[in-house]
């Protein structure tokens, strides 16, 4: 490949263009030489700054622990569209991978099918549940993390109005929404939560329009769970901030720390992010598989307790100690079982009732 390494930004990211020598490099001399773990991304790709990237970072970290590198022992395949999931999974199976991850709930059906046909290969699905003795289902308690950023939003808001921007409506994104609203209301039931969906994870124009309309109507903190649509939310927040450096607008990122997206001049509009540690989950499941303890047939729910979800603290100026303390406090309540965070509309209604 031609030297494009200078773009190699984030710590764990492999130089993915480093490809020509991977072909010859199949005869590696590592201890785990005959263990191979691969992953199939959804259409995002391993550089989506979101959970595909995070998953890959986890796999890379696992590789580093065990002397594996891309092309020899670990690898990924990116899907160009929905119909590619199955062939991509199969591709890895046929290349004798021992463990194959399907990253994203969109791959659930495909994983279920391939797993049924290939009982000798281990599979893991992220963000969904697939039955089967050779499948580990990795789920996250996003509602717990969302609850915590909800607490942060409630403490940060001055207008007593916060917003939620979702991608496409569905069970998964509902967890974010319900958890967030529960968190906000737990701090102060009088705070209004407006939420709106963009009907797309890839429509920054709609994201920006929704954010503009929310900020315009007095919302000052927006939590987005909308993939690329969120770009528009950041764009709008930064634009307001640019026009008026004193403007009080915040964005809460999702899946990974979106601090970088919030940078504008010397300040940052990213209050915090609900971080989903797909890397930790992937790394831990891979390690278990290598160690012969693959949790096949189990549904793993990575939550606060497993460090599977968390709250980013990068923006020290905005994410104050006071907020941090409160978040920490609620975190303990969740860990202690005092608070059962709702994950659906019904649960949310019941939870709000109980407040």
């Amino acid at each position, binding site marked *: 490949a031609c030297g494009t390494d200078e773009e190699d930004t984030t710590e764990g990211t492999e130089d993915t263009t480093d490809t020509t020598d*991977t072909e010859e490099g199949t005869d590696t001399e590592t201890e785990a030489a005959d263990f191979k773990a691969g992953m199939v991304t959804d259409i995002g790709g391993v550089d989506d700054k979101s959970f595909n990237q995070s998953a890959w970072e986890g796999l890379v970290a696992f590789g580093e622990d065990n002397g594996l590198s891309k092309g020899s022992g670990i690898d990924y395949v990116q899907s160009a569209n929905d119909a590619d999931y199955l062939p991509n999974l199969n591709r890895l199976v046929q290349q004798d991978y021992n463990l194959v991850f399907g990253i994203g709930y969109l791959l659930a059906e495909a994983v279920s099918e391939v797993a049924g046909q290939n009982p000798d290969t281990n599979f893991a699905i992220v963000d969904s549940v697939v039955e089967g003795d050779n499948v580990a289902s990795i789920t996250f308690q996003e509602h717990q993390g969302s609850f915590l950023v909800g607490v942060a939003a409630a403490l940060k808001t001055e207008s007593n109005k916060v917003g939620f921007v979702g991608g496409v409506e569905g069970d998964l994104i509902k967890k974010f929404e319900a958890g967030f609203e529960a968190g906000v209301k737990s701090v102060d039931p009088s705070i209004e939560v407006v939420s709106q969906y963009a009907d797309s994870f890839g429509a920054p124009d709609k994201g920006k329009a929704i954010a503009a309309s929310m900020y315009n109507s007095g919302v000052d903190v927006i939590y987005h769970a909308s993939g690329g649509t969120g770009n528009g939310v950041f764009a709008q927040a930064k634009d307001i901030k640019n026009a008026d450096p004193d403007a009080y607008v915040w964005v809460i990122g999702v899946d990974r720390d979106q601090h970088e997206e919030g940078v504008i001049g010397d300040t940052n509009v990213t209050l915090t992010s609900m971080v989903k540690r797909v890397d930790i989950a992937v790394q831990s499941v891979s390690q278990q598989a290598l160690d012969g303890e693959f949790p096949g047939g189990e549904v793993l729910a990575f939550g606060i307790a497993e460090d599977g979800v968390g709250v980013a603290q990068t923006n020290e100026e905005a994410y104050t100690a006071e907020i941090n303390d409160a978040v920490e406090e609620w975190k303990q309540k969740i860990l202690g079982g005092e608070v059962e965070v709702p994950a659906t509309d019904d649960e949310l209604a019941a939870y709000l009732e109980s407040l």
Partner: protein
Amino acid sequence: MFSNRMFNILVPIISVVLGLIAGAIIMLGFGYNPFQGYLALIDGAFGNAYFFGETIRQVTPYILTGLAVAFAFRAGLFNIGAEGQVIVGWLAAVWIGTTIEAPMIVHLPLALFAAALAGGMWGFVPGLLKAKLGVHEVIITIMMNYIALYLTNHLIRNVLTDTKDTTDRVVESAALSSEWLMTLTSYSRLHWGILVALVAAVFMWFLLEKTTAGYELRSVGYNRHASEYAGMKVGKNIILAMVISGGFAGLAGAMEGLGTFGYMPTHSAFTNIGFDGIAVALLGGNAALGTVIAAFLFGTLKIGALNMPTGAGVPAELVEIVIALIIFFVASSYIIRWALLRLKKEGK
């Protein structure tokens, strides 16, 4: 030596070869090995039974959307709306496939029919507006695409399921998938839909070339005024063309819903099956046989491309570039003909 017929066969072949050569040059330019790249592509499309099955599986909807676009073209209409028609056809097929119980001999045809009908309805609206009010079909079909996307998502979440992201699986009696085909191709998702697609191609050829209805459609496509003069109902033919075109695209949706997937997820973006159909149709010269061949080429390239990153380290997008160049060369067939004529003259 070079008869007209020879030209018609030679020009697309030369276009494909030129496109591949251009792709090879790009690969060389970026430091990849073009032989490895194309080997990986061929391997990824035909390397074993599984990949072969997947290739055919991908070809299936392409044939149908290609036919959809081609059919409309022949009647003088540009159907950018195949995409939306695919989506509503998919939903209709899955709807019937999940909610009804019936023996396969009834259920499967019914589900297919529902898909064709839904796609047809989606083509009917722009057809009607074009025929009655002269509204340009291009805008309407573009708008109908978005409506299809959002409306089906809404229906999946609120009507077919209780706020779920995917529908249930279609029951056995409505499924195109076949255990036999799957085991034959080491569990690819090859399904019987390819037969549906081929039958559709024959149907289109027969309808257009052999029947009075086809004569009318072609006549209207070439010259509306003369057709009206000759006693044909121009409006009716425009609507009919859009409905049949939409029906083909709707069937493409059924291929996904009853075959490849067996269910329908909510879509956060277009499937692109319909948009790719435009390229397939144009590559195939808007003729039935040509469309089938073009769909094979397209499906091969698309599925083969998936193997290029792991097989040879070449980004799969390279294939998009190759496809674009092939389309470009096909479009520029005039210059290829011209060059061939020059060659022929010099040869003499």
